[in-house]
Each structure stands twice: as structure tokens, then as C-alpha cells.
């Protein structure tokens, strides 16, 4: 069981302002039936992320059973490598990004114990794969053995390890000090120390600080100001000053604002209306902007964005973990 992650074929105008739940559910469920499209095979490197995006969106849409549970678990486990990490698909190399998705999927399906039963070395092995990617000098995290650095990986490590109850395997204070070095005078954060602020990196840094219990280090008013300036007249968010809006920033900006208690600093109803204009009301799914191609990445983050805004019947999302709130509440209290 796996889902195609690339662009979908879709039609339709976008004046419909209602959330087409059933269309989106069908769209996600059918992603795995497109093996006769080249795109399905060219996006294999996103497969495990795609399952996480699709599964989480389905949970938020109130259809947690829409994907076959056992097949999903089997697929996740088939992506594990000997070093304990997970690749994007069977045979692909292990990388932080997919290992985090694997953990998030197993937690969402309440199937972490499958790691002990059928995985390679149980959750301890997964934890050690992640912990070994921390740079002991700087506290930052690499994506894999080849050494790319990005605050995304630090967040991913904190996310997965805390869900597994293994955060003690890494040097949290050092990682926190590293995050502080990524902060700029505008109160926002960059991908590495000294780099320009970017809404995606703000989410990774602020959510990681939330997991570490160090939100006291965030300049909430200044950051909240910068984040709220991401909203444009269309209602959508951009990721940096003077850039175009994109539905996925509904999540990166919105969740960051929610984590620092400033979500009411933007116009939620205008944002929701913008997100809804990005949906394909006929074939399902969301694109980056109104009228554009849909894909499961934007579909997931658009729905998660609507969840932050308590839109309609969508289930509550955890702004720190980007998973259903009921799931994280249950897991983190274990």
C-alpha cells in the first residue's frame, strides 16, 4: 500500500467555497491506483511521506479507516533499513525525513509495538539511527550520513524521538542553543545560523522549541508580527516578505502562530476562504494556488491549515506534531 505523491490530473472551477470532504477522501484513497502513470514511479522518493500526508489528512477529515491498516503497516516496515532508519520506499536509503514519517504513521495507527514484533531492532534501533545524526559539536542534525544540515532535520528528530519516548538519547540543550543561533533580528528563524528568515523554518524551530519545553526563548510578539505579515490581501500566506502566497504556508505560518498563541493576529476566515479556493471541487485535492495542479502534499497541509482554524467538521490537529490531536494527546501522556 503506497500513495503516489506527484501532481494529479484534475479539473474544475474554484468558486465553490464548501469543503468537498468526500472528494478529498476519494482523491487520497485513489492515489495508490495510479501505477499506470509514469508520475507514480517518478515520485517514489516521496512515497512514505505521501502515506503520512494522506493518512493524516484522512484522519482530520474524519475517515481514519479509509486506508487499509495492515497494508499500511506492512508498507512502512518494508521501508526500514538495517541501520534502523527508513527510506522513502523499499530499497531506498534511510533518511531522517522518511524515518520521521514512518514513526508518525505508526503512532497514528497505534502500531508502534509492531517495531518490536516485526521491525529491525525495535524502537531503540530507530532511536539510535536518529540520535547518531546529531552533530555532537553544534547540536544540529543531519539528514543522513552525507551530512546535509537543516533545521528541518532537528525538528524531525525531536518529533520522532519524543513520540517514541526517546528524547533523552540526544543532547537537547545543545540543540536548543543551535536553534537560538538560527534566530534573526525580525524574531523569525532561518535554515541554518545566519540565514534569512523563512516561514517553513520558523515552524521547524518553534515546534522543536515547543517539544523541548523552551518556548520562553521565543520573542513571541516580534515573531508574531513577522508571521502575521505573511498574510496577503488574497487571504493566503507567503513564506517570506514580497513573495507569492501558497496554500502550504497556511500550515507553516498558521501552526507557528498557534504554538505562540498568536493565531488571532491574522484573518482566519479570509485564510480559510483562500485555502478553499485552492481545492479542486470536482476531482478532489488541493493545489498550491487556486486553479493549479493538486498533490497530496498541498492537500494535507491545506486541510491541516483549515483544522487550525476549526473549520467545519475537520478534526483538531496538533500544531507541534502535525498529527491528529487525539493521537498525540494519547501518545505523549503514555
Amino acid at each position, binding site marked *: 500500500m503506497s500513495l503516489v*505523491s*506527484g*501532481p494529479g*490530473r*484534475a*479539473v*474544475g472551477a474554484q468558486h465553490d467555497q464548501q469543503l468537498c470532504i468526500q472528494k478529498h477522501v476519494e482523491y487520497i484513497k485513489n492515489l495508490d491506483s495510479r501505477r*499506470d*502513470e*509514469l508520475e507514480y*514511479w*517518478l*515520485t*517514489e*522518493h*516521496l512515497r512514505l511521506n505521501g502515506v503520512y500526508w494522506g493518512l493524516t489528512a484522512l484522519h482530520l477529515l474524519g475517515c481514519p479507516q479509509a486506508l487499509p491498516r495492515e497494508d499500511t503497516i506492512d508498507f512502512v516496515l518494508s521501508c526500514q533499513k538495517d541501520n534502523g532508519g527508513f*527510506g*522513502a520506499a523499499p*530499497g531506498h*536509503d534511510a*533518511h531522517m525525513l522518511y524515518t520521521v514519517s514512518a514513526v508518525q504513521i505508526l503512532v497514528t495507527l497505534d502500531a508502534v509495538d509492531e517495531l518490536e514484533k516485526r521491525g529491525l531492532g525495535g524502537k531503540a534501533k530507530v532511536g539510535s539511527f536518529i540520535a547518531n545524526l546529531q552533530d555532537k559539536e553544534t547540536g544540529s542534525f543531519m539528514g*543522513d550520513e*552525507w*551530512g*546535509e544540515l537543516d533545521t528541518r532535520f532537528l525538528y524531525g528528530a525531536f518529533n520522532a524521538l519524543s513520540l517514541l519516548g526517546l528524547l533523552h538519547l540526544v543532547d537537547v540543550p545543545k540543540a536548543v542553543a543551535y536553534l537560538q543561533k538560527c534566530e*534573526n*533580528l*525580525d524574531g523569525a528563524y532561518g*535554515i541554518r545560523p*545566519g*540565514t*534569512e528568515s*523563512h516561514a517553513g523554518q520558523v515552524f521547524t524551530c518553534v515546534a522543536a522549541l515547543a517539544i523541548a519545553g523552551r518556548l520562553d526563548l521565543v520573542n513571541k510578539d516580534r515573531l*508574531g*508580527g513577522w508571521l*502575521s*505579515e505573511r*498574510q496577503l490581501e488574497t487571504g493566503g500566506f507567503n513564506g*517570506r*516578505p*514580497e*513573495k507569492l502566497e*501558497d496554500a*502550504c504556508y497556511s500550515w507553516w505560518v498558521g501552526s507557528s502562530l498557534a504554538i505562540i498563541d*498568536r493565531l*488571532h*493576529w*491574522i*484573518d482566519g476566515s*479570509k485564510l480559510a476562504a483562500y485555502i478553499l479556493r485552492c481545492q479542486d471541487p470536482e*476531482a478532489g485535492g488541493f*493545489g*498550491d494556488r487556486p*486553479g*493549479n*495542479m493538486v*498533490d*497530496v*502534499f*498541498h492537500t494535507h497541509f491545506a486541510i491541516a491549515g483549515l483544522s487550525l482554524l476549526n473549520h467545519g467538521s475537520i478534526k483538531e490537529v496538533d500544531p507541534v506534531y502535525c498529527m491528529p490531536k487525539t493521537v498525540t494527546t494519547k501518545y505523549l501522556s503514555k
Partner: protein
Amino acid sequence: MASHGIPRYTVQERSEEARQQELRKIENYQELDRLVQQKVAAHEYTPETLQSISELLSKNPEYYTVWNYRRRALQNEFSRASAAGESAVGEITTLIKDDLQFLIPLLRKFPKCYWIWNYRLWLLDEAKRRLPVSVSRRLWEEELALVGKMLSLDSRNFHGWGYRRFVVESLEKLTTDEMRSGSMAQSEFDYAKKMIGTNLSNFSAWHYRTKLIQRLLNERSASDEERKKMLDDELNLIHRALCDPYDQSLWFYHQNLMCTFDPTISEQTMAPNLSDSERLDYLRGEMEEIQDMLDGAEDCKYVYQALIECTLLISKVEGRLSNADQQKVLSWLSELKKLDPLRYGRWLDFERSLSQ
């Protein structure tokens, strides 16, 4: 990562012929994938295998695992060349140069594909590890030219700017004996200036400028007077730029500069040792400048935000907000509530904080 900016197209049932064609493409792709997997599993790092890897990556540069195969294949080649003795440097240089060349058309076609840039950095780092400084330095210098070209095509490319920092850091470390200092702070400052000159609303370049000014002053062990001089120049520059007061990038740079007058964060700025009275002088001068900008731009919310910010900074330095100033802040705030309905909640919170 996902599709960006691709217009949705009307679905057309694929003709049977088109379907068959696509199936053949899939078959070819999978066959190539299988071949590469087999060769790599058998550690057969021959020129033919490398050719197949190239072919597969040209079809799908997002296939990160295959970039890892390529690294292993290259490492194998490097070890073989190293064993060759005298000709090793020449051989390794050729291998790296050829591979850098292989990436160029891919980068042109897929400029936002992370994996290609990561692989390229790894390759250049290999040059650093395996070749004499004089040789690897030349490769990194060419890389600086390449990233310059790329940023001239897409001047806000987030990865492009990050990549530039890596290249500059490497070049600064790859110094030869005859070079006095490796620092490129001045030439990079000039570069940022050029980029701002091309497009004033390029915040990436303004951000880079902020970082470089700090470095320049620190490297010169600049005196407080020199720091003040730099600050004056920057204030003049931003005032001239703000003849377009509707550009958010400029106001964020302005906000960065105002941090110099905030006693709690001034140590992170270019002029950390200003006295309180100097700070107040600057802030009052700033208030006048901004007030002038209002003329003809009464509907520009950024102007009111900046007036409020400066007034609050004055109160921070003085230790109190006078009644007169509070009234002014409230009147600007009422403008903001009108002009900036998107952020109404923010302004309401601020209003409440003032009355506390």
C-alpha cells in the same frame, strides 16, 4: 517536493495509444532502475554503471538514493586514482570536473531540486579533502561564479543564497600562503549592494547585508566612531530607498536598524555602545524622517507601525511612556485598525497591552 505553479489542466481520457506509450516509458524506467540496483548491489562500479546512473538521474533527479550510489561509485574511482601515485591529482581533478559538468544541464532543468545541490556540495567537499588547495580553490571559485549566475536568474532563491554562504565559507578557508586574509566580507558586501541596486525589494540581499556589515566591522576592529559612521550611512540609504514606503522588505531592514537603539538587543547590532542620549537623538531624527514619509502616503500602514515602534523605543530608553506619546501611539493605532483589518487581532492585543 510537490507541484508548484503548474496550472490545473482539463482531464482528457488518455487514448489507448497514449496509455500504451506511457506503460512503455514506465517499463524502460523500471528496467533502468533494476539494472542500476543490480550493479550497485554487486559493487560493480564500472564506467558503464556510472553511465546508467547518469541516465537514471537525468530521468529522475529527485531519486536521492541514486545520488548516494553515485557518491559511492565516485569514491571508488577516487580510491583507484589515489593508488595510481603521481598522476592521482590529475585524475581526481578530471573526475570531479567531469561530474560537476554532468550536473549543469540538470541544474538548469531542475533548479529547485535539493538533492542535486547537496550532491554538488559533496563533490566540491571531496575536492577540498582530496586535492591541493590551489587546485580545489579554483573549482570553488568557479562555483561562486555559477551561484552568482543562478541568483541573477532567480534573485530570491532561498537555496541559492544558502548555497552561496557555503561556497564563500569554503573559499575563505581555502587560503594559500600568499593571501593575507581569506575574508570575503568586503566583496560579498559589494555583491549584496549590487543585488539591492538591481531590485530594492530583494529582502534576501538586505538580510545578507545585515550579516556582512557586522562581519566587516568586527574584522576591522572598528571603533565606536566608525560604527556610528556605518550606521549613519545605512540610515541614509534606507531613507532614500523608502521613497517607496509600500515595500515590506525595506521596512524589515529598517526594523533591523532600529534594533541598534533598543538597549536590550543592541549588542547584536552594528553599533552596540551608543549612549542613551545618542539613542534618543537617533530615534527623534528617525521620527521626523518617518513623519515626512506620511505626506502622500497616509494610507501606508508601515509608516504608522514604524512611528509606533520608534516611540516605544524612546520610552524604553527613557524608562517611561509619556502621556503625550501614549496619545500619539493610540491615534496611530486607530489608523492601523482601519488600514490593516487582516491583522486587527494583533492591533487589539497591542491596544490592551498599552492600557495595562
